[in-house]
């Protein structure tokens, strides 16, 4: 299993557009991928799960991946968050 921490820098927090991009990007991986914030962990392939965390700006989140393509999944998640401008690593 690999995991990595990110800080959400977008002023609006994790809103629908970047969340969709993130979920869309990781859904193609076979690994189990989770997003954790404030002790709550959700499936990163679930848009409802991600949105239900209501992650505000300034939060630190942990993304963990477990499976055959775990490294690629984490790398892709980080790239999408940076591209969407919601996080710096």
């Amino acid at each position: 299993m690999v995991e990595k921490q990110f800080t959400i820098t977008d002023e609006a927090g994790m809103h629908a557009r970047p969340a969709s991009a993130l979920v869309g990007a990781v859904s193609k991986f076979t690994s189990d991928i989770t997003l954790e914030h404030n002790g709550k962990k959700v499936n990163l392939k679930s848009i409802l799960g991600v949105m239900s965390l209501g992650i505000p700006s300034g939060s630190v989140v942990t993304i963990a991946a477990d499976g055959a393509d775990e490294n690629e999944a984490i790398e892709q998640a980080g790239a999408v968050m940076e591209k969407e401008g919601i996080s710096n690593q």
Partner: protein
Amino acid sequence: MTQTMSGIAASNGIAIAKAFRLENPELNVDKRTISDTDSELARLTSALETSIAELEVIQKKTAEQISEKEAAIFGAHLLVLSDPELVGPITEKIKTENVNAEFALQEATDMFIAMFEAMDNEYMKERAADIRDVRKRVLGHLLGVTIQSPSMISDEVIIIAEDLTPSDTVQLNAQFVKGFITDIGGRTSHSAILARTLEIPAVVGAKKAMADIQNGMIVIVDGLDGTILIDPDESVIEEYKNKQLAYDEQKAEWAVLKNEATVTADGQAVELGANIGTPKDITGVVDNGGEAIGLYRTEFLYMGRDSFPTEDEQVEAYAAVLKGMQGKPTVVRTLDIGGDKELSYLDLPKELNPFLGLRAIRLCLEMPDMFRTQLRALLRASVHGNLKIMFPMIATLDEFREAKALLLEEKAKLQAEGVEVSETIEVGIMVEIPSTAVMADTFAKEVDFFSIGTNDLIQYTMAADRMNESVSYLYQPFNPAILRLVKMVIDASHREGKWTGMCGEMAGDEIAIPILLGLGLDEFSMSASSILKARAQISKLSKAEMAQHTDRILALSNSQEVEDYVKQLPTN
């Protein structure tokens, strides 16, 4: 008989047309026990697939006709339809509880709707509407109910609805849909935001529109003030047609002015700035062609929380504003708290006369650590733009000197730490206490600029509490006493080569603008939405001509005479 109703003005403009009720069909979901789970699952899959195909079309259409940004919401809807945490439980319920697909869908989505609605954040609350929208689409297919779609409309109408789902809204064809009215929703609802993008007049939160408006009735939507007129008389229709024309003309005139400088008819430039409270307000300033921030009220950064904002948090906010303004002048007012503005985490004694008490700069000088933190944050952010620092409620020169000394001390400390600080920060004061206006000539030698805060200047000059209804008649911006003080301040600044701005309500007032122009005011700061209107007005006024009226205006005996005098000027 004209019937009037009012709601929340959601999108500017006026529309007059026949009502078209967008009915929300009852999608009744019964719980049924099913025996053939496989065919039930197939029904679910088929409804999901049809919904996905429809949404893909809507998404594509929105991206082409509106924008990629608006289309993104349907990307989210599509993800909901394939969300493992939603589809999983629905499938599971059908298989293990032998319930019908409609019921399983209803139960699973209800859980998420409740979760979003319970969130302490407007944006997240609105997301419950997205889930309802997606659910309605799938349920419609499962139940074989045709859901009315705005894209079928081929007449000029005003849509009346309980609420518009995001997918309803993007199917609005502005050629036919002249406006809409919904019973629920607020200014930040998806439909309200999209109405503004499409420039369709809209009123939301009307509460009784579906109850009182029938198909085919003539309806007027005034998206400027939230008024709805049902079955209006001829004379009312005529009145609103004129209002509509005037609005269209004005909009065309203002749009041209957005990227223009503010120049008078005789070629004199003045600066039009905006008053803001948070970094988010910058968008409005840019959209309305603001040339500066004339007042950034930093107290909002301190309010609605349970401890002081840290130095880093403040740097972030100030830097965001400075970057957003891309080098345009940005006047930041240091903390104006105390008196009637309280902070839950700052225990200040109750005062008998809060407006005359320990507030603003007085409080900051009393609590230097808190003040130094803000000054350091401002200095650190200064490299990101054109920062000007302004101290509020200055009554004596000593207060200004003391505040400036603290600023210079923090600057020296930061530089010693190797932190880069702008060398061109102007330091000025708010003029809102009569003593300061009277002593403006002395102040002008030491400050870099003045900004006149008219709301307080009027209250202190007239000795009339502006919160007290019974003396509200004394709130007189055009009282010659106020205008004479304004003149003293402007003249004093110009004699020392400095500038004067104004950041109270008065700066955007159409009666005040000609007078202030004549008095030589350099910068007018107002709410962002007033800027284009003011720019249009100023472009028609001659500064030299207004200056000729100044002496006569200042010699008038009361507020009413001043107003009457300005109204009869040929340019007004």
